[in-house]
């Protein structure tokens, strides 16, 4: 990269490369095993001496996965809609044709992660800016609360949260997973750190020019903290995609499951049908991996950005 100097080959460097390769192998192996396992026959998978390469590539695991349960491909409900129906049923916004449930799970997961990401980015950027740049009553208390709540595992409020979601008619909806994720104050904290980097003179200048609060925010703050928003977006997307616990406690019906939950359920139902489970795991891993590999540069930049400021 930056060095055109010749690198000396020292024994330590050789050692490093060898060890790194071993670790790299250990890290790739699980994924390799999932993806190849999805195409193996049952005999291959269950043989007492593991076969490291499918002796025969089959699609039967995927066929089984897709023939299991069905669900409509889309089904978006009005949030809080069940407050307004006589029997407490949900108001559907729109729904689509029936597809294998696994596809629906994937769509649910994407919807959940994207929604959580958008809402978090918007709310956190606004709050972060204010916390960094405004002096107002209650700021210190609020900030202390945020810092203390940041590391709180969600299990702590397991039961109250379920009960609350139940009264709000959000239990067993994807919104039930999204809202607590948005409420988690890590994003606010991160965006506050970023906003602190915005020079105060710029805000002052904007005010002298007569720009309103909203214009100052959208035209000065947002462009300045864009890298931070990127970092937060990636962080929220991945963490809500992988937040198994919230998903586990919040949704229960087949058409509302996420892909992680779906695989976990399959694993419990067919504890040793590894072919099927791995087909599910492949379906869960490949989309997000593809996203990651395509946007690798932005991912790593974004994450690194978060740290420098954090």
């Amino acid at each position, binding site marked *: 990269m930056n060095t055109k100097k010749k690198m000396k080959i020292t024994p330590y460097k050789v050692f490093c490369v060898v060890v790194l390769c071993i670790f790299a192998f250990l890290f790739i192996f699980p994924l390799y095993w999932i993806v190849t396992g999805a195409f193996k026959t049952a*005999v291959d998978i*269950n043989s007492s001496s593991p076969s490291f390469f499918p002796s025969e590539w089959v699609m039967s695991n995927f066929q089984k996965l897709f023939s299991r349960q069905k669900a409509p491909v889309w089904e978006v409900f009005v949030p809080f809609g069940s407050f307004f129906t006589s029997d*407490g049923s949900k108001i559907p916004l729109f729904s689509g044709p029936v597809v294998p449930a696994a596809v629906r799970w994937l769509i649910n997961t994407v919807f959940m992660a994207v929604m959580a990401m958008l809402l978090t980015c918007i709310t956190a950027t606004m709050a972060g800016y204010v916390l960094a740049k405004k002096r107002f009553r209650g700021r210190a208390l609020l900030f202390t609360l945020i810092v203390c709540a940041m590391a709180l595992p969600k299990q702590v409020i397991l039961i109250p949260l379920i009960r609350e979601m*139940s*009264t*709000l008619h959000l239990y067993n909806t994807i919104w039930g997973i999204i809202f607590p994720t948005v409420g988690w104050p890590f994003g606010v904290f991160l965006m506050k750190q970023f906003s602190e980097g915005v020079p105060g003179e710029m805000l002052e200048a904007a005010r002298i020019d007569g720009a309103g609060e909203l214009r100052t925010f959208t035209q000065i703050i947002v462009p300045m903290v864009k890298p931070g928003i990127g970092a937060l977006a990636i962080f929220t997307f991945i963490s809500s995609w992988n937040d198994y616990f919230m998903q586990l406690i919040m949704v229960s019906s087949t058409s509302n499951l996420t892909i992680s939950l779906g695989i976990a359920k399959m694993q419990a*139902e067919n*504890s040793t049908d590894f072919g099927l489970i791995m087909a599910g795991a492949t379906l869960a891993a490949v989309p997000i991996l593809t996203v990651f590999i395509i946007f690798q540069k932005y991912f790593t930049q974004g994450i690194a950005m978060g740290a420098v400021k954090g």
Partner: protein
Amino acid sequence: MRKFLATMLAAAMTVSLVACGGGSNGGSSTAASDAPAAASTAAEAGTAAAEVSTAAEEVSTPEATAEPVSLTFWTYPVGGWGNSDNVDALLASFNEKYPEITVTMEYLDYTNGDDQVNTAIEGGNAPDLIMEGPERLVANWGARGLMVDLSDLFADPEAADIYANVTSACLSPDGNYYEYPLCMVAHCMAINKTIFEEADALQYLNLDNHTWTTEDFFKAVQAIYDSGHTNVAAIYCEGQGGDQGTRAIINNLYSGKFTNPEHTAYAVNSPENIQALEELYAQDGINFDPALVGGGEQDLLRNNTLAMAFCWNAASQTKIPDGMDTYGITDVGDEIIPMNFPTDDGKVELCGGIWGFGIFDNGDQAKIDAAKAFIRFMANENVKDAVLASGFFPAHSGVTDVYAGTETADVMAMFTKDFMPNLGDYYQVVPGWAQARTAWWNMLQRIGSGGDVATEVEAFETEANTAAGQ
């Protein structure tokens, strides 16, 4: 600062007000739905509800129209009821008669199913209908006041021929029935015939009536272990899945009991049970496996890892595994033979499974009535098909020949002859059952990792009896 705290409290109050509003909303909706409820009861009374409802529409009396009702129905994998193909066929015939009732299925598993139902209850989203046994429907959710009393179903003439011990299992100590039974089975164990043959252990089995003695059981295990097959059997104890198998082997070996005869307290702490546990622990080839549940154990029998399984029944015997075309054999084609649990006194007591339907009280009378219509259809009118789908035996004495003419007729006849008569006491209705079974697998885990048997059994009993309110 103080002001801010006040603001926060105010905010919290607003939220709780909203929350209360939500609650009362729910209440009013219940009241509103009382009227159509009466209608659907009327519809049920008719023999062909569909026709009644169309007739009603013609004369345009709004009370009598069969309002569309949607039910959620969650089922545990009760034999073939865990398989959506079987259930879909049954639902189709139900909908022919009741087109206005939509049933949405969810399939639970025994590993996480309880957690799933419990979170749903807490989330105000419990299913309308549920299929499982009295240990959950009666002793747990029923006793907690979450279920609808089904006494009116038992008053039907169709309920007259339900076996008396089944009826009593569905009856809660509070005098209500929280389950209407469909099918039952005697849980047994199973062995791999080829592995036994190779170890010359078939001599220890009485294959005429599928029984063996405690002494022969241990000899057989030893013989198989010595033949080089080091994993003979597993006392699986990761969770509650299939735990009747571990209870049955331990109780039967030296005729120990699990509860007192009145089903009010646990009675595991006896010399018989302690001896059984100690000998099982000491026996070569039997692992206490805290990373395994009953379902996994069956899979290990099927792929020839284990030579016997303690979690077995008629439905497991006749289930055709994925990718195979016949039942009763392992992945490599060895024959699987169901066996009674070994006993010292020749008196086998098999653990019974009784499965049926229960209704969660979600406060909506229309749904409750529709759910009752569903139960009447499945467990009375259409009982033969419903039982056939499960792979178990009917709970009605009047229902016979369910399997006549099917592929599995021979196997089912054999189970009827050699296993069903050995059905023991149905003790799974002791108060605090859910907590006791958690304590049970925890106890097995402790024993498996070297805990002193007598101490651990006593610890179990204290914990279980506390939950039982003793």
